[in-house]
């Protein structure tokens, strides 16, 4: 549904986005990650046709943004960064205006507005002027505008920004639900959000695409991924180390510690071997030792994020 091909954006002499290409299919929620100033919003603005690109092309549902912008723009809903809205209008008047721009009329328009108001829980403030709204309501009003016409494509720039934890949770559930039959691209720098809602992740750093894969693949890049942590009761550090060293699946270095008569160990997998956790369990059972913890670390997204993106790009805007 969304296809970005070799997007380049120059701001004066500064290269803000450098040959970024990706695709989003129907049923996918693509998480768009990157440090502040990496070019996320610039890329989204090019995707939505607000910024002309220096090079490359964007197509939405097969319509080229440069050649047929109106057809392309009709297919998506967009929540820009900071969720702008006409502050002098009431929530309902604003949604009415947005619906008119989407060529909705009559009963269809009223239904669309009612549905958006219900989905975004705006009933209480529907007749209120937008500049009197709290940040959460304000944000959701702009979000309502984006989903109003039930578009097949959604482009959301930091959709949970400024929401409280409950609202964040609800917004994520909503995006996840809508992601089943839409193509959604979500920019964020909240990593839990990626794990919670995204089916795929791209990371952009200093304008360049540095990662494109599933959240699981991203986790697997973490240094800690695949390590097995165990805690065995009533065993000394020395005994546990001896046992672990005898397991061929266990790699080095072993980290073993002892506390309150329990031994804890973190074991990396040996190169090219699988089934480390199972092998450890078999060895423990054989000895008859009881354990209260045994799990394989999934890796942490923020570790990977930090490794992939360099710190200094956060300072370049």
């Amino acid at each position, binding site marked *: 549904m969304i296809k970005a091909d070799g997007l380049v954006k120059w701001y004066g002499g500064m290269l803000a986005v450098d040959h970024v290409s990706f695709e989003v299919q129907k049923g996918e929620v693509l998480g768009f990650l990157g440090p502040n100033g990496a070019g996320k919003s610039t890329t989204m*603005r090019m995707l939505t046709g607000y910024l002309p690109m220096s090079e490359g092309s964007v197509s939405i549902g097969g319509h080229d943004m440069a050649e047929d912008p109106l057809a392309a*723009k009709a297919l998506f809903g967009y929540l820009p960064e900071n969720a702008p*809205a*006409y*502050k*002098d209008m009431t929530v309902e008047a604003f949604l009415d205006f*947005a619906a008119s*721009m*989407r060529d909705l009329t009559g009963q269809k328009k009223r239904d669309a507005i009612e549905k958006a108001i219900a989905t975004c829980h705006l009933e209480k403030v529907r007749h209120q002027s937008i500049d009197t709204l709290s940040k959460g309501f304000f944000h959701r009003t702009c979000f309502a505008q984006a989903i109003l016409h039930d578009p097949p494509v959604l482009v959301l720039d930091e959709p949970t920004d400024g929401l409280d934890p409950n609202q964040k949770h609800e917004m994520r559930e909503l995006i996840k639900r809508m992601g089943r039959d839409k193509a959604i691209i979500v920019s964020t720098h909240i990593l839990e959000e990626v794990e919670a809602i995204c089916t795929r992740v791209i990371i952009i750093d200093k304008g360049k695409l540095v990662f494109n894969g599933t959240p699981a693949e991203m986790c697997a890049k973490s240094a800690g991924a695949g390590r097995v942590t165990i805690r065995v009761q009533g065993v000394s550090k020395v005994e546990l180390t001896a046992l672990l060293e005898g397991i061929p699946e266990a790699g080095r270095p072993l980290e073993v510690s002892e506390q309150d008569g329990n031994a804890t160990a973190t074991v990396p997998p040996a190169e090219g071997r699988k089934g480390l956790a199972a092998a450890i369990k078999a060895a423990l059972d054989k000895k008859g030792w009881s354990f209260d913890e045994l799990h394989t670390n999934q890796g942490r997204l923020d570790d990977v994020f930090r490794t992939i993106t360099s710190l200094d790009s956060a300072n370049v805007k």
Partner: protein
Amino acid sequence: MNKTLHIIKRELASYFGSPIAYVFLIIFLILTGFFTFMMGGFFQSDEASLARFFVWHPWLYMLLVPAIGMRMWAEERRMGTLELLFTLPLSAKQAIMGKFLAGWLFLGIALLLTLPMPITVCYLGDPDVGPMITGYVGSFLMSGAYLAISGMTSACTRNQVISFITSVVACLLLVLVGFPPVTNLLLKWGASSVLVDFAASLSVMFHFESMQRGVLDLRDIIYFVTLMAFALISTGIILKQKRS
């Protein structure tokens, strides 16, 4: 076309939903009255015409129209709604025309509210109605030209004060090149009369004056329409340039 109408509707609702519309209308009416009666000596002139009413319009509009035009794009840019507007399935032409026409319509409403003026004149005397009508047409066209220029300067900046000042200056230039003291000065400095006439013909004064006299010349209409078209097309170019 339909979308342009919705933009016009939204803009007008925004004018009348805020104090701007009422403050503008009241000040416009007070000032036209003040200038016509106090400064213009309407009664002393003992003329059944609106000449002393229209003669102030180029100057009044110079200050008041930029107050309407300055927010046209600067406000959208400052609030970030420009991004919303230009990612809706709507062409730049529709957005620009919609916003312009809404402002122009609003100025037309302000002008219509001065109708008690000609009604009074008709009641008190036996005026020539022709110049009154062409005067109104000319005044409306002139306000549109000023508005288009204010909109153009508004597209250049997110700061409304800068937008206001630059459009006042732009409008002032358009008035001054045809203002007799200035044209006389140019002549005294040795500019050839052809050049001075050409400069004066670019002025709103030149074209508005003939309309006040009751002459509805196609050239005057073309002048105002060209001025508007130029400013609106420039607005489109500026908005596009500013985004990249």
